[in-house]
């Protein structure tokens, strides 16, 4: 276990380094400087700006400069918002995005595991078909359609919940969290149903039943531990997906999180912000993938011993 952990971390460092380097040079070859859009800039001001942001130096110098800053957690200044650093902006947006992702994954896990396990236990009954049909809807209806539809129904027609914002009105966190979580609930439901079906046919479950354990004990103590391994492995990639989802959800609901910052930076060509967030997102995703792989390994006794 521990050696796998260190191996993976050691691999992650060069990967992140490569990501940072590639992104840096991609942005350098992008046509147009960051200040092109501000037409009224005089040559003198432009010169000063270039000096301030060290844009006159050679690409190589800038790269070395950026990388040494990066190691110290300094992602440079934002081109669009003078006086604010990228690190600072990430620090403002991150808690909001984390909270949103946390609620979404909570909803996804509660709904998904419950309905998936239930569907597996009541195979080929109504309790199997209906949740699985809903799961299919969750997989096929994209987030960018689900969100507006929920707003239309619950926000505009029924006037039950606020249509946008985050933490300003009571209940305004409900719709964004459901929008983001629903698709994952659907995947998790399918995965846990499949995993449970596989485990429930195995000998150790028969043994547990033969011992006279109650059905609830068999399911909770024995079947779920193995049956939910696919769900745990899915959580890592799911976090990456949640991030992409947060771009959409934060845009729809006007939530001041990292996802919306990123989309705005993409529109504004705020290159330092794009660069900084890309590196940051990559680091986060590499980390969560590592965590979910390790958790899945640890849950599976066979691979626990083998490693």
């Amino acid at each position, binding site marked *: 276990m521990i050696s796998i952990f260190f191996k993976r971390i050691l691999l992650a460092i060069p990967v992140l380094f490569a990501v940072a380097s590639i992104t840096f040079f991609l942005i350098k070859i992008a046509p147009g400087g960051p200040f092109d859009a501000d037409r009224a800039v005089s040559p003198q001001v432009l010169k000063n700006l270039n000096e301030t942001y060290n844009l006159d130096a050679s690409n190589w110098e800038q790269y070395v400069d950026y990388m040494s800053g990066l190691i110290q957690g300094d992602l440079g200044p934002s081109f669009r918002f003078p006086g604010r650093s990228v690190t600072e902006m990430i620090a403002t947006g991150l808690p909001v995005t984390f909270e949103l992702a946390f609620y979404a994954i909570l909803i996804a896990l509660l709904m998904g595991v419950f309905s998936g396990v239930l569907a597996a236990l009541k195979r080929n009954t109504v309790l199997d078909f209906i949740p699985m049909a809903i799961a*299919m809807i969750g*997989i096929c*209806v*994209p987030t960018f359609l689900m969100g507006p*539809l929920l707003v239309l129904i619950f926000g505009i027609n029924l006037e039950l919940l606020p249509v946008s914002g985050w933490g300003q009105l009571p209940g305004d966190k409900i719709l964004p969290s459901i929008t983001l979580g629903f698709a994952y609930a659907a995947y998790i439901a399918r995965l846990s149903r499949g995993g449970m079906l596989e485990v429930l046919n195995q000998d150790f479950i028969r043994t547990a039943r033969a011992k006279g354990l109650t059905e609830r004990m068999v399911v909770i103590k024995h079947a779920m531990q193995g049956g939910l391994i696919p769900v745990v492995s899915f959580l890592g990639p799911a976090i990456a997906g949640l991030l992409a989802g947060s*771009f959409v959800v934060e845009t729809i609901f006007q939530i001041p999180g990292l996802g919306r910052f990123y989309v705005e930076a993409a*529109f504004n060509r705020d290159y330092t912000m794009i660069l900084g967030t890309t590196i940051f997102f*990559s680091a986060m995703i590499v980390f969560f993938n590592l965590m979910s792989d390790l958790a899945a390994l640890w849950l599976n006794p066979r691979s626990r011993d083998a490693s």
Partner: protein
Amino acid sequence: MNNNSLWSDAIYRLSRNKAAMIGGFILIMLIILAALAPWIAPYSYSFQDLNLGASPPSADHLLGTDILGRDLLSRILYGARISLLVGFVATGVALVIGVTWGIVAGYIGGRVDSIMMRIVDVLYGLPFIIFIILLMVIFGRNLWLLFGAIGAVEWLTMARIVRGQVIGLKNQEFVMAARAMGVSNLSMFRKHLLPNILGPIAVYATLTIPQVMLLEGFLSFLGLGIQPPMSSWGTLIKDGVESMEEYSWLLIYPGITFTITLFALNFFGDGLRDALDPKTSDN
């Protein structure tokens, strides 16, 4: 290992799967409608009747018009061309990269294989959606770049599947016999390996198309994909969201079309998988 019987069995099984057949039928209809859009669409996608503005569905405009007075049905039909085109072309790109990568890694094996697969593992762990956005920002929002960028992201799973299949085939007698006869690597790939893994490739390609279409819709929704005056279903949904409070049909009809298409593709893909590989049909 008779190829014909595998396929005819599969077609028989597929024809008995109602959900897959309905999905397949919807898909064929959609492709025909999209191909014929310039001839059957009641209006041009850019024709504006500004006097009309946004009007609800009526006899003249079956699905209503948008804010600029453009016929929604026509725009959905033309949008189908772009959305399906992105779906098929980007999947094609993914297919070419993934299959080549998988065959080479699986067949050559050894150190080459482990390096190639390690690369796939590493790429798996990266937030590719961000790189697509990055590319679109840097190089402009170009349709061909979109195909390439999406294709370049979606090939990873294909490479893994193909590699697994090739490793399974590699030690079978007919491959060894071919190798003993001195068949070159290239014709080994083309004549012996590829025909035997067409099944899984077809299945996975069908299941990749909806993912690619979702990705295109996602980018277009953020304003980073297809640019006006062209429209895909993603951009139509984006436009619909902007005016959904007053003109809900502008969101609902493109949304329904997109969702039905994704359903059809997923059901057809699942059906194809069950038909070609009865072992997995259990779950």
